[in-house]
């Protein structure tokens, strides 16, 4: 209660009985709206940080593009063409307006529109992220909940050991081992995961099996451990003891008593893990030669292609904020203290 009353004028509790659900609804809508507003505000700060960050990177793009033999006049001309001679705040606003209108500018390296470059990679990244999420989330939640129910059992201990080892082993090792075993020796799957067109489910499966497996290892391990911790924590509450003393069996205790109280923390664990799937897949993309956004970003950094770097980073930040916001909203909606005040 104290969390939220600071901002609302909150009538005394005793008088709540009379006032209907309308007040509660507006309070809830207000809470959600403020949460969404915070996400946008954060995104605004992020855009400043991204811009300043790329601004202080050393090196001059115009000189870099034109090479060592360029005349000072040519460099100055290019700087003017790229708005590099304008003050930083002007360039920030130009950039921001461009971003908001869907035009993050042109690549400094090949003069192609950044939007088009991203559009060519985004579906690939979303596909990889989507398939990995679809595989790893259900497995992670089931394993996490199961090992919380049967704490200390063989299942719990094996799952604990496996997730610990998977988190500890670097991703590139998992990916490389996958390639060596399944692609080189067994020849079950191709070593490179790219095709122009997907024609059948079998082909789809063959293409995605290894990268998705590699990514899922870490994803499942992280999410499972956080889920297990959240459920175990809830299982220590007095109301769980009360349910045991009412004669509830373990399955019922977890499903009807513990889980509704862990939606918030679990949603946050899932969001944190999933947000990694857009920008953090660089190793998988390189080893499996998969054309995703992470590689685009790394390439852009190495060529100092600032508009592309900025757009990619904004993209990843937005995705991250969006996922975390969804998790928070799930947490708010699953908490009756916030739903019915």
């Amino acid at each position, binding site marked *: *209660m104290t969390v939220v*009353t*600071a901002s609302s*004028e*909150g009538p*005394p*509790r*005793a*008088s*709540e009985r009379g006032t209907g659900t309308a007040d509660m609804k507006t309070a809830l809508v207000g809470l959600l709206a403020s949460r969404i507003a915070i996400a946008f505000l954060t995104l605004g700060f992020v855009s400043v940080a991204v811009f300043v960050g790329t601004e202080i990177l050393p090196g001059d793009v115009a000189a870099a593009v034109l090479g060592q033999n360029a005349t000072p006049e040519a460099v100055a001309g290019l700087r003017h063409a790229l708005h590099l001679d304008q003050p930083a705040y002007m360039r920030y606003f130009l950039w921001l307006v461009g971003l908001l209108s869907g035009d993050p500018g042109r690549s400094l390296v090949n003069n192609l529109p950044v939007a088009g470059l991203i559009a060519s990679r985004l579906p690939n990244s979303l596909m990889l992220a989507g398939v990995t999420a679809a595989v790893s989330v259900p497995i992670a939640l089931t394993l996490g909940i199961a090992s919380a129910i049967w704490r200390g059992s063989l299942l719990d201990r094996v799952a604990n050991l496996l997730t610990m080892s998977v988190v500890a082993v670097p991703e590139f090792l998992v990916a490389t081992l996958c390639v060596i075993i399944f692609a080189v020796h067994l020849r079950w799957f191709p070593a490179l995961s790219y095709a122009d067109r997907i024609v059948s489910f079998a082909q789809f499966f063959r293409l995605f099996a290894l990268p998705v497996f590699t990514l899922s290892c870490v994803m499942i391990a992280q999410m499972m451990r956080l889920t297990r911790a959240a459920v175990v924590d809830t299982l*220590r*509450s*007095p*109301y769980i*003891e*009360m*349910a*045991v*003393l*009412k*004669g*509830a*069996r373990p399955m*019922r205790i977890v499903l*009807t*008593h513990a889980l*509704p*109280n862990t939606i918030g923390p679990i949603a946050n664990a899932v969001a944190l893990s999933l947000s990694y799937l857009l920008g953090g897949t660089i190793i998988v993309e390189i080893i499996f030669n998969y054309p995703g956004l992470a590689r685009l970003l790394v390439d852009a950094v190495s060529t100092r292609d600032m508009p592309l770097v900025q757009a990619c980073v904004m993209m990843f930040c937005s995705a991250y904020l969006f996922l975390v916001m969804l998790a928070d909203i799930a947490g708010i909606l*699953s*908490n*009756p*203290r916030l739903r*019915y005040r």
Partner: protein
Amino acid sequence: MAPLVKVENLHVTARDDCGRNLAIVKDVSFTVEPGEVVALIGESGSGKTTIALSLMGYTRAGSRIVGGNITFDGREVLAMSQRELASLRGRDIAYVPQSAAASFNPARPLLKQVIESSQIHRVMPLAAAEAKAVALFRELVLPNPEKVGERYPHQVSGGQLQRLLAAMALVTEPKLVIFDEPTTALDVTTQIEVLRVFKKAIKERGTTAVYVSHDLAVVAQMADRIIVLREGSIREVDATGLILSSPKNDYTKSLLAAAEPQVRAAAPATTQQTAPPVLEVRSVIAGYGTADRDGIPAVPVLRDFSLAIKPGSTLGVIGESGCGKSTLARVIAGLLPAARGEVKLHGMPLPRSAAERTREQLRRIQIVFQMADTALNPARPIGRILGRPLEFYHGFFGDKRRRRVAELLDMVRLPATMAERYPSEISGGQKQRVNLARALAAEPSLILCDEVTSALDTVVGAAILDLLAELQRELGVAYLFISHDLSTVKAVCDEVMILYAGQMMEHGSRGALHQRPLHPYSDLLISSVPELRQGWLDGISDKCLKEAAVGAARSGRGEACSFFERCPVRIPGRCDVEPTPLRHLSKGADIRCQRTEEELVELTAQ
């Protein structure tokens, strides 16, 4: 007839932090006859809850039943499988826990939780269970019985939740109900109402019950037989009347003695009557939340509050949870700056915030908190905890400081060797003594005691009260003694102030509390404190109870009376609208009430 419950030579151990197994229940044997209410009474650590839970074949994490037999209704409880135990729990034996707020699942509506055991055990169809629950709600005098089940736990008051727990236990008509301190977390005026409906429900059903409590006066109302426990073993078993009138065991005698504390307060010497007050609080408004344009906080807790404390005397402030007692201490200490009004020390106004006060001003007012253990830094030995204020206020170092620490420990009757120990190595009572010594280190003229004995067992708490009184005689320090417990306040205070929803209701000498007329709230508060005799609960008039049941305290608007909704002698249209006047009664006390002395005498005589 065979006993319903038979416990023979029960032994339970618990593993402590170091992995050692300690016996927490030792060789306990007793029986419970059908239709009987048996109380397990003892202080914390006596094993009473452990024993009660073991009747359901349940132990908390870390503890284990290592020996003995428990027979329930002819069946061996300790030989049952998990599945058999589950079918016993909630069906044949139901449990009513202490903290209703924690024992309800915050994410589920109340009705679902109340009827859950009837659905788990398939005792009756859903609709029948819901109808039964509503009937129980009505029987347990819950407001709005048809609708209350749709609400969530956080939307319902503590006293109502406790009654909902009882409904949850009774819905399957179990053969045995275990009540585990069901009213300990409640305010007295709420407790009395809950006790009454519980007692009625038990009596009408002829329910067999095990009633766990630390409070003899409460148990005296509920139980037929009392089992006195200490440190995991039984000290005495007898009928309630006999335990109260002729206890045989020394420990039982000390429990009885501590339940009715003697008066310790040293009446202030007559010369001090004219001395200027050590502390004066004048027309203070304080609260929480953002302030409005006039600087009044969104949630005002203290409204136009004034008091004065004479040097070397004790002023008791009593009220129920949420009435603003602790806020008062925080305002005086400067932890919560008042929005309005002033706090004067020795006649000099104090800055509202502690950050703006001088070291000398800070030194003169010290505070001791309720939670003895959380107030002490677990990473510092006692000697350093006490040494810090000596350095800060008096600039004592080295040998001088060490000697003074030893003196302080001696003052609170602790051995000097205690200086090297850490807070985790000493008991709760000892910790509270250390807190007191830390306050004394500053050589204050006033100590704010905020519920200093509430977290302690009765006997330990009584010793702290003795110490407070002795220190006052020796050092002449004044106390502001904040408590929710009338008997402790009466035991140590010269003057008593009764607080309700941030307003002073009555202020007078300790003796004036025993004289009528009283403010209607004082009357309710005093008559709600359980007395240590059987039949007290049955003799309470219904009228004051009905009003008490209305529920939560509400801050009245403006200067109007905040007790209006619960007041049995209220005048609608006046009490809830007009500013309440202060009246001086002929017994020497002041009250805030619309009723005149004559009216109050007449109305309470009826």
